[in-house]
């Protein structure tokens, strides 16, 4: 057996990392189609307020993050409805409010050590409870995503024609927003709040270079994300790098490589 798998904490890291790599791109595909790639970033930053609140109240910070980022997600949807032409504005406003709240609350937490670990994640020190939380949340997200597979695609692509053909747009949007919030919160524990949104967007961008359909985009995105996670964990273990950041940078490097080779092929052809 390879040395990397001899450690209990690495086994947990792989398990949590791969689980997240399956669900995060599923959410990512819809987010990219809706042209709201920054929503993940906004929710992740807002979830930091929940982390701080959780630490302050003595409840599990991941649970706190889930509650607050769900509230923030509903906020974004609410503002978006009020200002339909300025969807990005709702994201910026919510994100600012969340970061402000996180900044104030984290000032009151004693021992901000655990707060900081949410910025870049701490995938190598996940305890059993958090692993269970990651797996349970991921299962829920995956099941709901598969159940609403077609509706989500339809709404993301063209909201008004989806509404005309009888898709309950409001409901689908609300559910999806909640899924995103849950997903982002648990991921902030592992890869960190600052980089979780790149894990949503980069695999999808890679997949879109090859995929010919919605289904293919989803499947390729998941494959890319799983590969990035495994490669990133290996690299960070043997080169002594931060795991979360390594996973994301692996993805960036692959994306750039794909873009360059495809560009040069196009020129040649």
């Amino acid at each position, binding site marked *: 057996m390879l*040395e*990397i798998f001899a*450690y*209990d*904490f*690495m086994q947990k*890291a792989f398990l949590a990392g791969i689980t997240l790599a399956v669900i995060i791109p599923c959410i990512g595909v819809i987010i990219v189609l809706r042209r709201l790639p920054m929503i993940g970033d906004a929710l992740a930053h807002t979830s930091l307020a929940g982390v701080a609140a959780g630490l302050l109240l003595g409840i599990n910070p991941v649970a706190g993050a889930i509650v607050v980022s769900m509230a923030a997600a509903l906020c974004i949807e609410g503002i978006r409805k009020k200002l339909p032409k300025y969807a990005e504005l709702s994201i910026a406003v919510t994100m600012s409010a969340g970061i402000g709240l996180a900044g104030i609350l984290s000032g009151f937490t*004693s*021992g*901000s*050590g*655990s707060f*900081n*670990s949410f910025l*870049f994640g*701490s995938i*190598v*020190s*996940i*305890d059993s409870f958090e692993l269970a939380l990651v797996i349970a949340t991921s299962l829920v997200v995956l099941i709901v995503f598969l159940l609403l597979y077609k509706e989500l695609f339809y709404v993301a692509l063209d909201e008004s024609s989806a509404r005309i053909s009888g898709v309950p747009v409001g409901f689908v949007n609300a559910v999806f927003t909640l899924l995103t919030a849950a997903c982002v919160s648990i991921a902030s524990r592992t890869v960190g709040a600052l980089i979780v949104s790149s894990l949503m967007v980069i695999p999808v961008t890679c997949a879109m270079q090859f995929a010919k359909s919605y289904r293919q985009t989803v499947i390729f995105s998941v494959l890319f994300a799983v590969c990035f996670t495994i490669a990133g*964990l290996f690299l*960070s*273990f*043997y*080169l*002594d*790098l*931060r*795991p979360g950041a390594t996973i994301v940078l692996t993805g960036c490097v692959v994306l750039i490589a794909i873009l360059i080779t495809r560009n040069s092929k196009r020129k040649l052809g």
Partner: protein
Amino acid sequence: MHRLGAAVVMKLSLTLIFSAFLCACAVPASTTAVVRDKPVIYASFYPVYDFAKKAAGDFAEVRCFIPDGAEPHDWEPSPRDIAGLMGADLFLYAGMGFEHWVDSVLSGLGQDAPPAVETSLAIQALLASPDDGREHDGHHIHDDHDHHDSHVWLSPRLAKLQFAAVCEALKEIDPKNAGSYDEALKKHLAEFDKLDDEFKALSLLPKKVIVVTHEAFGYLCRDYGLEQISIAGYSPEDEPGPARMAQVTRLARENGVTVVFYEELSSAKIARTVAAEIGAKTLPLSPLEGLTDEERENGDDYFSVMRKNHAALKEALS
């Protein structure tokens, strides 16, 4: 319509500014100078604060700059804290780069800055001298770090010098009570020596290696013949990478470590992960950067917390 909107915005902003001003007035102004007969001394954080309180007795009012329970490595003073510092007669800090904000705060205050004393100057001189009484035997598990460890107070032998520096500074600003500060110095030096003797006994125990989360115990280890393996770096905020975690578990196994130490003011997660990996248990070991709520309720001080540390080390080393 448009003008009406502008008027509403104007009124709103004015109300906001006015209410912020009202709030400011309503907060009790503890920082403004009241008539006082005692010098006011600001100590940067817990060990310095405790030393200053012990040295000052009833002759000075000692305030702690960094609130208890805050993690001092990444603490930043608020505008209110700085205003308070302006009215102080003396500012004591540990130095050696521990309080990274000191230089900018003091230079920002300029003429209004109180006299500031870095309480570790004598220790720095001692450490810089070629013969610093350091025992050079024993192997070093990782001495590839050139960073400064600034946690000098964790070695009773060096803490004694820091305490003396605090007394000296007090004598300087309050010469009429110099006799009382000398008395406090004498009384407490005996207590530091007693603590030193107790820690010396640790070197008789069979094991020499301790695993800690944050590399704070270098001087303690140095003075009592121990070795520390730190999971993270010099700041408890550092998250170790997986390679470091693997290396630590290997070293801990090789050295028969049965206890992994964590700090109560920081997250114990990493310590728990390593402990689970090697089948060890976790115990708190305080770097004395602040007291926990519980310690404060129990009326703990430098000496009582150091004795708790001593007991924990004894358990880990025997």
